[in-house]
């Protein structure tokens, strides 16, 4: 009881309080002084950029298959079906084993970057890339067409259509012969 009283007196001793206050004040001043000279963490954004993490969900891209000289996309619309906000529309090109797309449009004005289309794709065709500066003053700038999305751009789209058309034509050429052969065989 007596001890506690003494402790309390100690705590409310004005000189102890003053010394304590001054000490903490000067310690605080030391902390801010040190902070003044520490390296700054600011990234001056328009002039400097931080690297984007590898799994960043930025602008979509359609994967280019160098070996087959075409885009991986076969136009199956699984991504369009998976999309909760109807971002994706596409025009299918060719059919069967050589199926692809001639048009692939994404209206990112509706996109919420949920990654569901990427997860739905069984052909490794659509991915989310590192580009993130997608804001614009125009509404139609949010609509990205196939040339904007394909890896390799306009050139890749052209080659993609060429390859698919060539393969389809080859198949078409081989088909009547095969059909004829099988017909002949049957008769």
């Amino acid at each position: 009881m007596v001890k506690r009283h003494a402790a309390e007196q100690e705590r409310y001793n004005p000189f102890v309080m003053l010394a304590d206050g001054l000490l903490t004040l000067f310690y605080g001043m030391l902390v801010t002084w040190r902070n003044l000279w520490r390296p700054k963490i600011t990234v001056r954004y328009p002039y400097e950029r931080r690297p984007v993490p590898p799994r960043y969900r930025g602008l979509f891209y359609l994967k280019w298959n160098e070996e087959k000289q075409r885009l991986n996309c076969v136009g199956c619309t699984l991504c369009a079906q998976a999309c909760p906000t109807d971002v994706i529309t596409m025009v299918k090109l060719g059919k069967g084993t050589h199926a692809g797309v001639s048009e692939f449009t994404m209206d990112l004005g509706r996109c919420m970057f949920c990654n569901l289309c990427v997860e739905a794709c069984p052909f490794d065709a659509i991915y989310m890339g590192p580009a993130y500066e997608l804001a614009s003053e125009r509404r139609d700038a949010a609509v990205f067409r196939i040339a904007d999305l394909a890896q390799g751009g306009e050139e890749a789209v052209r080659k993609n259509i060429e390859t698919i058309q060539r393969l389809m034509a080859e198949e078409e050429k081989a088909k009547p012969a095969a059909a004829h052969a099988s017909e002949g065989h049957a008769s």
Partner: protein
Amino acid sequence: MIEAVASFFVQHPLLWTFVKAVVLASFTLMIPLAVIYIERKVAGYIQSRLGPVHVGPQGTFQTVADALKLLLKEDIVPTGADRRFFYLAPYIAFISTVLSFMVLPFAPGWVALEMNVAVLFVLGVSLFNVVSILMAGWSSNNKYSLLGGLRAVAQLLSYEIPMVLSVLVVVFYTGSLSLTEIIEYQVKHGWNIWHPPVLIAALIYFICALAEINRTPFDLPEAESELVSGFNTEYSGMRFALFFASEFANNFFITAFAAALFFGGWDGPILPPIVWMFLKVFVMIFVFMWVRWTPPRLRIDQILRFAWQGLVPLSLLNLLFAIALGVR
């Protein structure tokens, strides 16, 4: 050429006064631009940021751009405001600041008005600033503004006394109320700060100056986290700019006053006097900013108790100490 101009102004003293007034008023409007820029830089650096970097080299034109923006902004008067006082308050704040600058010697001969009671004059006109704050707080018809204004008055009442008492110690030492004479005394006899009673007086002055210009930890009249922006909450456009300018010009002035009283004003080797004056002022302004980002804000009752129970007795004792040492 210079002689012709000089003789012209000697013949027309009123015109010369007008020129000096214009120069001083412009200086009072311009100096906040520099002080605010430094403030923002120091604040940024202490918080591991860079501060303004975008406008001009190293962001130096940022405050100029801000001032231009404020000039162009709409001037809004809140409904139910006491219009006369609402309009008048910023001008009183600004005029009180210009008046204090009037008697401040920047360098030998660089003083707008040589006054033999300059110290008394400064302590007098700096009071007007608080009158304007109360006017602004009262006339805004806003609870936050009113609370800010009331706090400003309570704070001034408690801090003006120890401040005057600490200035009085310097006056005792130098035997003059003229700022020019005080500085010239220090040029001859060494800075006042080296005398023990003046050192204590300078510390008291420093604390009171923080309270006088409403800076953390005594920034109660404009405590952002509780009073929105305090007494100037309802102000916008150029009137707000005037309040802001007068606040930061006051910041400059109170350190310049301290430099004149304690640190020998323009006294210093090699560099020209005006440079020394500004050097001392900006070092002290830096310390003010440094303090601003360190201790948290006090409560109003803590502030008043600290003033009345701590600083007033201390400054009185210090005055007795100075007298006991038998100066001059």
